[in-house]
């Protein structure tokens, strides 16, 4: 691979998808995706042997940092409280969060898991990382990776069942449905 543009075209979808599943917000994912590529281009990426593994490591860590630092939407909006006074804002904000949960995609299910577990599942199953690669990318011991992966699968199973998705729905073959599942919103 020779140019920045080539790297961008090759990995933009992988990076964006990772960000989207990690942060569960399209706008934030877009910003993060851009940030990741800027970081990549400011590094000496030509000297990296396993480019995809390295880019995914940057991506997941950018997402983890973002989630750490993210002030909740409530607070963002509350910053501008004086502009919106008298419009029942607290309720509105709760509503935004609840509304989002009506989404039908797996991104919702994944977002129910703790972020550290989400990171492990994303690298393992979206990008087919080996356990050792996951450990390296997240700077955690191999044993921790294994236990997070195990815990993640257990939690995921519960989340799917809780969301009213029977086991047959994700077990069955062939699998035509594209990330659709019924998900009760919180009214």
């Amino acid at each position: 691979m020779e140019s920045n543009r080539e790297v961008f075209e090759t990995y933009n979808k992988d990076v964006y998808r990772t960000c989207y599943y990690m942060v569960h917000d399209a706008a934030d994912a877009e910003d993060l995706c851009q940030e990741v590529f800027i970081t990549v281009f400011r590094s000496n990426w030509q000297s990296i042997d396993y480019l995809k593994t390295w880019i995914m490591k940057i991506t997941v860590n950018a997402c983890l940092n973002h989630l750490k630092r993210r002030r909740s939407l409530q607070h963002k909006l509350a910053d501008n409280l004086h502009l919106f006074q008298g419009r029942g804002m607290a309720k509105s904000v709760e509503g935004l969060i609840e509304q989002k949960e009506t989404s039908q995609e797996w991104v919702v299910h994944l977002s129910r898991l703790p972020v550290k577990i989400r990171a492990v599942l994303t690298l393992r199953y979206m990008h087919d990382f080996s356990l050792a690669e996951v450990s390296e990318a997240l700077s955690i011991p191999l044993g921790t990776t294994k236990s997070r992966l195990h815990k993640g699968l257990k939690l995921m199973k519960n989340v799917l069942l809780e969301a009213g998705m029977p086991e047959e729905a994700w077990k069955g073959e062939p699998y035509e449905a594209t990330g659709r599942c019924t998900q009760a919103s919180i009214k």
Partner: protein
Amino acid sequence: MKQLEDALKRQLNEDQAITYPDFDEMWTHIEQAESDSSWLQAGRASAIPRRPRSWSKIAAVVSLSVLVAAAPVYAAIHYDWGNLLRSNEGIQAALDQNLGQHLGQSITKDGVTLTLQTAIVDENRTVILYSLDVGKHRETDFWNVKGMTLKGTNSSYKEGEYNYEQWDEENQRYNGYFESDWTPGQDTAKIILTADAIDLKTVQSKELPLNPASPEVQSFNIGREGMRKIDVQPLVQNKDKLLLLGEVTFDDPLAKAWVYPQIAAYNGTTMVKELPGGTFGEPGDHGEYKLKHFLKADEITPGQTRFKLQYWKQERSIPGPWSFELELSKKQMESGTIIKKLDVPVEPGDTSNTIEKMVITPTQIRLSIRYKGNGAQEQMPYKKSFLLVDGRTLKSGFYYGYSTEDPNLITIRFERPAGLLVDEGTPITFVGKYKVTIHTEDKAPTLLKNISTEKQTLIRDVGGYPVEWTYYMQGKDLYIETGSDDPHFGGINQTNMGGKYNDPLGKPVTTNFREDGNNKAIDVYKNFKGTEASVYMYFYTTDDPDKETRVQLQP
């Protein structure tokens, strides 16, 4: 587990489940950022053509900061915070008792001075009071400190961080406070308080020639502050309410973070008061910014009422680092602090919600409530919370404390009013009011026949309440409105046409809230084909505004 692993592999790589952004546009942004950074690298002769840059930005990069470090000092501070702390009574009470830690550090950049005045630190939270001197100030100016956060704390998650400023006309400065759930693990801790930038914004508006009588989607170009256009659809809901559904498309997705567009209606110079229930900022499928405004239908006269889009414009930004090194101490608060492990149910027989802990500090009383139920049950079914403390009633704050790391734990916060004495023997009772119950048992379908553009209504019994179902086609989409005249019916959360994997799912048009007293909901089924439909509910709620629970917490 193998199957689940396979399903994850398929799902997480399923391209159709995801809407990708415009990568070409993103590439343009990246190239631009790259050329900016190359140019900024001092001393390096750049081959990249220079674009005109504002001198104020360059000045900000090289301006010097003044930083004065300070050790904890306790002092009587005579500073008038006006009504800044009106929702933080406990902080005001602590200040009145001289329980604040004097900070007195300032940073000045480009003529703007941020001064940290006082810290209040206890077992529940850290609050830092500050002032902002901006020099010349116009009435339309709104300055704010952006991205305030604590660094160097061992906790990696910054829950409940928030800052807010208010203009103090008398003293010609802004007063502000920063609040965080972080507290020192020991008596004292060294931390760094930073802010990303200090911004100046003004409120702007643009006329929208909207026809409120037409239920069609109406599109208006904006072309300002990174906003491309707004689509507005007026919908009359339940005869008396006009719902404006807005969707702003951005040319510059970064502007979404601060533009906060909203629609305002004016009769002459009077702004039409908005009904509660409106929302803003909900992200659309393609990154749009969605708005919902509810107005009283009889206050809107087509042809006479004027509509405006109002939004923020960023006039100036003074970038950081605005960074202060602080040593904070909670020592002074310790004598007035009681931590009590409780583990009592929210009401007798409730195994899902347990009051786990109570933390009483000189500024606040917090209850932690743990939820152990499954998704079909209600997390904290009582929607209004009070504490009876020695005969006085405290009402809980606006928000529940909620942690993404431990989503099953919420904290309810009660500000401590001045003069309220609490010790281990003070009687404290928790009172929960307004119970909302979720019902999932009704799995019978509702059959909608002869679906057409004409609005048709049928009445179906839901849990003993008569519920009206109104359905009609609008364009290619089927709209289903539900609601009941009985206020004890809480509303249907969402509908579907079968609930199985591939069955159509209703998309809620309205954003409803439990305990809001509104049981009306609208679901839309996009691109609906056919004239009949069997519609199922996920769940409905019932409201019991008068139901009350009382839990004695001490003695």
